[in-house]
């Protein structure tokens, strides 16, 4: 029992923070936001560097299949660092697919997909809900709200009680990218008209692993984003002078920042508790995942809202980065289950199933 990073983990954290600070600059992110078509909201050069030079697209995948052989804790560190820069990267869906295939794919499926996902050659995206019909072995229907769906190559989708991989370039697939509030992770809708898809060997295991990776990824991004919102606001508050004093010396301002820190410290515990619980196969893992996703999403939204508020007028301009954080926070609230939904799952665990005891 040692709830602190190992030396190796501390090093990974340092590496990814430096990488994203150096590369995921506001200018590059804004260029990705302004792009249209498949590359809307995608900094492809950043993705290549991340997957190639850094070799971390498969951070949570087995070494045997080209991954880094690490776990959810290290994935959370990556997502936290990416979130701190609101990086325009398809990290989320790609991690979800990789973990799903690693957990529920056949040996052949793992062989086929994991190395390409780990290399960043295949970008993944995953559905949450959507209603597909299966007829004569082919899938049809609409799959909405796919993060980085227009850029993605491979889709994970539940249908008919199983989990499926859909090649988004396959005949019968039409993907429509949307102008999305958070332009750093645009959503897309996939229409499937009798598409031949690949059934994963163990659908339940695949979906559970995908959800775990998705929730941890979002919670960790939210943690990174919230901390960045706090740090940038603290820095601003020491420079900006009103009434003859730095605004950071006003008590009400300080207390607001203090409240952000109180929530962020809890969010940090939540992310690494959940990641660790998943890595260790703890019976608390599901509770931890729901708690982390709900808590961190709300913490980030609160902090990003405060970032705008405490910057005053410039906080709501397009030019300032505050709105990138705010919109990312909003999208994290909605993606893969709202906080209310996750809390209802927690209630079911502790009230109905007695997990509290």
């Amino acid at each position, binding site marked *: 029992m040692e709830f602190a990073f190992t030396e190796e983990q501390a090093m990974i954290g340092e590496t990814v923070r430096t990488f994203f600070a150096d590369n995921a600059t506001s200018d590059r992110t804004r260029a990705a936001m302004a792009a249209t078509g498949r590359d809307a909201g995608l900094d492809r050069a950043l993705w290549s560097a991340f997957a190639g030079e850094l070799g971390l697209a498969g951070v949570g995948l087995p070494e045997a299949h080209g991954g880094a052989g690490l776990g959810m804790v290290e994935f959370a560190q990556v997502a936290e660092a990416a979130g701190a820069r609101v990086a325009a990267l398809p990290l989320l869906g790609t991690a979800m697919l990789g973990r799903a295939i690693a957990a529920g794919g056949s040996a052949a499926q793992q062989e086929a997909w994991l190395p390409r996902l780990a290399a960043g050659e295949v970008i993944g995206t995953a559905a949450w809900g959507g209603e597909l019909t299966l007829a004569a072995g082919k899938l049809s229907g609409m799959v909405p709200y796919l993060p980085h769906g227009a850029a993605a190559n491979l889709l994970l989708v539940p249908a008919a009680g199983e989990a499926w991989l859909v090649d988004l370039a396959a005949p019968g697939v039409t993907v429509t990218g*949307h102008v999305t509030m958070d332009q750093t992770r645009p959503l897309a809708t996939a229409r499937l008209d009798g598409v031949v898809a690949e059934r994963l060997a163990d659908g339940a295991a695949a979906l559970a692993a995908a959800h775990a990776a998705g929730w941890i990824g979002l919670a960790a991004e939210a943690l990174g984003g919230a901390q960045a919102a706090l740090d940038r606001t603290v820095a601003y508050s020491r420079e900006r002078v009103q*009434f003859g004093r730095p605004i950071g010396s006003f008590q009400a301002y300080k207390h607001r920042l203090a409240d952000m820190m109180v929530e962020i410290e809890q969010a940090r515990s939540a992310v690494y508790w959940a990641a660790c619980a998943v890595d260790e196969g703890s019976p608390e893992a599901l509770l931890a995942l729901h708690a982390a996703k709900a808590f961190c999403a709300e913490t980030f939204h609160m902090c990003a809202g405060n970032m*705008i508020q405490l910057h*005053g007028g410039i906080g709501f301009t397009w030019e300032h980065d505050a709105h990138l954080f705010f919109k990312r926070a909003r999208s994290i*609230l909605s993606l893969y289950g709202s906080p209310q939904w996750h809390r209802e799952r927690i209630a079911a665990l502790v009230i109905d199933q007695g997990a509290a005891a």
Partner: protein
Amino acid sequence: MKLGFSAADEAFRAECAAWLHEQMAGPFADIRGIPNLCDAIPRRKEWEQQLAAHRWSCIGWPEEWGGRDATLAQQVIFAEEYARAGAPNRINHIGVELAGPTILAFGSAEQKARYLPGIAAGTAIWCQGYSEPGAGSDLANVKTRARLEGEPGAEEWVVNGQKVWTSLAHYSDMIFVVARSEEGSRGPKGLSFLLMDMDQPGIEVRPIGQMNGEAEFNETFLTDARCPADAMLGAQGEGWQVAMALLAFERGVSTLGQQMQFRNELDAVIAAARANGLAADPVVRQRIARAETGLRLMRYGALRMLSGTDLAAIDGAALTYKIQWATWRRNLGELAMDVLGQAGEIAPGEEYRWPLLPNMYLFSRSDTIYGGTNQIQRNLIAERGLGLPREPRGTP
């Protein structure tokens, strides 16, 4: 204490409702329910002039200046029917509700004659030059300078500086500017309140992009901008008093129109919840009930405030109104997005432009900032409303 309307009031309601519906169904149907303040400007100017032509432009003003000397009840009724008819937000809000009443209160007979008719007629659109890059929350820290130049008898104010967050400046005809007219003065002393023409080489306007993709606010650069010596409201060096009195009008009858817009927004949230089934969710129902309660209490708070005899009197209800509505609307924006879910995060078209509710979610983050942040409002409430001691000044 009485909330009901008289028979005469109801007759007035029938009259204005009929006219408004006729306009919105017929000649102005194209701008019915238009959500923001930056679209269809030429048509909206025509709408202002149409209102004026039928003496509906500034009904609370004296008849002498194009108003109707309308009672509070009539003004309440007009605001309700205006919104119910789907008439568009008034682009000359600042002229009609702020500049006009301030000129009525502080202007000379000559100034009234010069400025009021244009506002009443809907031909002079106004904007407000208060905030500066270094004078946001600390509004008295104005750096824009004004000096009197020219031959005696033909003197002009020459103004240099930068204003910011000038709402709607890009299509305004006039601006009122708070400027430092006494060299070396500090804080609220030595300021003057000037009424300036926007159409002159000394004034340049640059729109500020906002997080919702629109640009309602602007930077306004004044470089040897000019106005006649007598285009000053109140005495020289006493512009702060005029500026503050104007802010008090912001808590006046115009709140009623704003509330009708809030009503539409809340109704849209309820409709969205009905449409996607969340109207049956007990947690969402609690939040809608809170929003409904808050909106009603804003209405009755405004009526309580307006039922007082002295509009400018700062009482509790007036002091607390800004933070109340700004916070309410911010919360409604969050509720709206929670109700819409991911569907609310997708724009309907190819552009980064948002329908009513997502736009409100984004824009409402500025409501708690402009016109005095929530923090500044709390200072005001504590010091003026509760008489608490001021904070020590100076550096730590």
